[in-house]
């Protein structure tokens, strides 16, 4: 994949100005950012309504919940895993948070939602780490199981929480900026810190890049994996509460297709599904890219029939953009095979 990119980097430049070289290096890897900028330009040119305070607020609101799920997915993808149960967990956590003692207390609702996420994360993590099962199949089972439980609990009927202030978190703003967006960014920062500055985070990268090497170096592979699934679960559960808070009810169908959306955002953000590669910033950009695409399609009132085709086309154009750049850089070595 990106072998060529990274190779170019350790260029001959020698000892030289490490700082500028680092910056160039960094800039070269920021495809998600360029895609984002390109999209913003398209948006600015095609509609006046895009760059309005209201629409940008909307964008943040719309991106925040899935954004938190993307962060969770990002951690799991880093380990070389995949979690396709996130959407169902969002649904289950949202419904449970609105249901337990009738959703009368917001703090309790939050705790319930996170607990649901943690529990499912624990199960997923146990199966993956301690039983050595494929994450895909485990979380696929969990996807069905969690969604089935939602339907069983609600019989398909949305659950109305009793607390008056159930929607407060989702609607509050701080200095005009939506609180839910701030929560998202704070979580992104926390995940970044965890991934880049703590021993735990380095272990995740090591496991994702080569589990054998990680194990041989004394990394507690299983425990780390389990912890990642639990942390991710907690975030997804919390996202479930936020979604319920935003909509005002616990919807049984909430979160459908979040699995594909979140994986897509993580991947377009530069992470590799093989694990060990990716950046939090990329994941955030990836979320925004998909958020903007969806937002734009509505703003431009693209025909319902054409929306899917447009979205697909845009995704393909965006990812192809990332390779066009490589080429222009320098002659590829024969080595860089897919």
């Amino acid at each position: 994949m990106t072998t060529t990119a990274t190779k170019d980097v350790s260029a001959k430049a020698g000892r030289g100005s490490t700082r500028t070289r680092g910056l160039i290096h960094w800039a070269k890897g920021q495809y998600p950012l360029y895609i984002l900028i390109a999209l913003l330009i398209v948006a600015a040119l095609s509609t006046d309504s895009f760059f309005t305070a209201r629409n940008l607020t909307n964008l943040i609101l719309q991106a925040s919940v899935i954004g938190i799920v993307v962060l969770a997915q990002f951690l799991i993808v880093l380990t070389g895993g995949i979690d396709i149960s996130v959407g169902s967990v969002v649904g289950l956590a949202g419904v449970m948070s609105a249901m337990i003692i009738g959703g009368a207390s917001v703090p309790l609702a939050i705790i319930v939602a996170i607990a649901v996420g943690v529990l499912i994360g624990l199960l997923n993590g146990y199966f993956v780490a301690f039983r050595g099962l494929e994450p895909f199949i485990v979380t696929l089972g969990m996807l069905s199981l969690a969604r089935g439980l939602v339907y069983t609990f609600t019989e398909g009927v949305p659950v109305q929480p009793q607390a008056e202030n159930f929607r407060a978190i989702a609607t509050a703003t701080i200095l005009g900026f939506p609180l839910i967006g701030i929560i998202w960014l704070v979580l992104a920062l926390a995940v970044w810190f965890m991934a880049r500055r703590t021993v735990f985070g380095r272990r995740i990268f090591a496991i994702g890049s080569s589990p054998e090497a990680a194990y041989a170096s004394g990394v507690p592979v299983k425990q780390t994996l389990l912890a990642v699934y639990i942390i991710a679960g907690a975030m997804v559960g919390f996202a479930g509460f936020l979604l319920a808070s935003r909509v005002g009810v616990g919807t049984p169908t909430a979160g459908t297709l979040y699995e594909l959306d979140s994986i897509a955002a993580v991947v377009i953000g530069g992470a590799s599904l093989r694990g060990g590669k990716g950046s939090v910033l990329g994941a955030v950009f990836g979320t925004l890219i998909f958020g903007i695409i969806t937002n734009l399609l509505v703003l431009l009132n693209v025909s319902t029939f054409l929306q899917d085709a447009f979205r697909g086309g845009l995704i393909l154009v965006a990812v192809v953009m990332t390779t066009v750049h490589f080429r222009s850089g320098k002659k590829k070595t024969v080595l860089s095979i897919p």
Partner: protein
Amino acid sequence: LTGCGSTEGSGATGAGDGAPAVQKEVKELTIGFLQKQLDAPYFNAMKIEAERISKEQGFKLLFQSANGDPVTQLNQAQTMLSQGADALIVNAISPETQKTQLQAIANNIPLIFVDTGIPDVGVTAVTSDNFEIGKLSGELTAKRFTKGKSIDVGILTGGANDEIVGPQRQKGFLDGLTAGGIPYKVVAESPAVWAQDKAVPVAESMLAAHPDVQLIIGLNDAMALGALTVLQDQKNTTTLVAASADGQKEALAKIKEGGCEGQYVSTGLNSPSLATERGMEIAISIATGQKTAKDFDKEEFTKAAGINCDNVDEFYSADNVF
């Protein structure tokens, strides 16, 4: 080729003639109910109604939902045949898609459609007249606007795969507006796939592009409720919302709560229990041999009504399932 055949037998005896060979008591019956999907309260209400009737009358109910996939539903129908169902009640998903195969099944046993039917297939279709209901709701909404003055409307639709119900409801509602003397312009139309949570972001974007839109129509109540949430968040009290057809409890509550000045103007009655009840009645009468397919019209409509602040009390009850 010797030994060649077909998986569907050859008994093409014509539409709806699959009469039972022997007469049975109600208690001996097995009736299959094939529901579209269960992720909306409306569909679930049908399930609950069907179960109630089966318990009351003591026959066996086979109930399946296809999660919106027409092919899954066909598979389920075939499986129910092999389970020995005496009659099938089907809420069809894609009439065009399923026509041929359901026709084949209808040749074997009585087939009654509810909610969504397929023309010329089965005994009869007990459906709500989506166009009519939409129109009634549209007319009620029209009353809230100044006659003759054009309004901007945004529509939350079911999605690209919606063949009949959505378009009918939409057409009906808009016709209702016209009939009520309100010229309109559809400035935005986006899919929110029938769900309240999906309607929230779509309504947000819609309002960003068209802040002056005067009316947001949801083709069902869940989507209209989603739009209402957004309007309340944005402290927007001037844009009105309405559903073209449905009658979900929460929506009725909003209409009741808002009174005649409320933001949630109207919806249309599309009663899941009425349709289920009638469908069951027909199925039982044919399966027990009391009646034959010829006794029924090819199409039956359930009661249609528009609901707004004036008549909401007739329909609202806090302990409704739907």
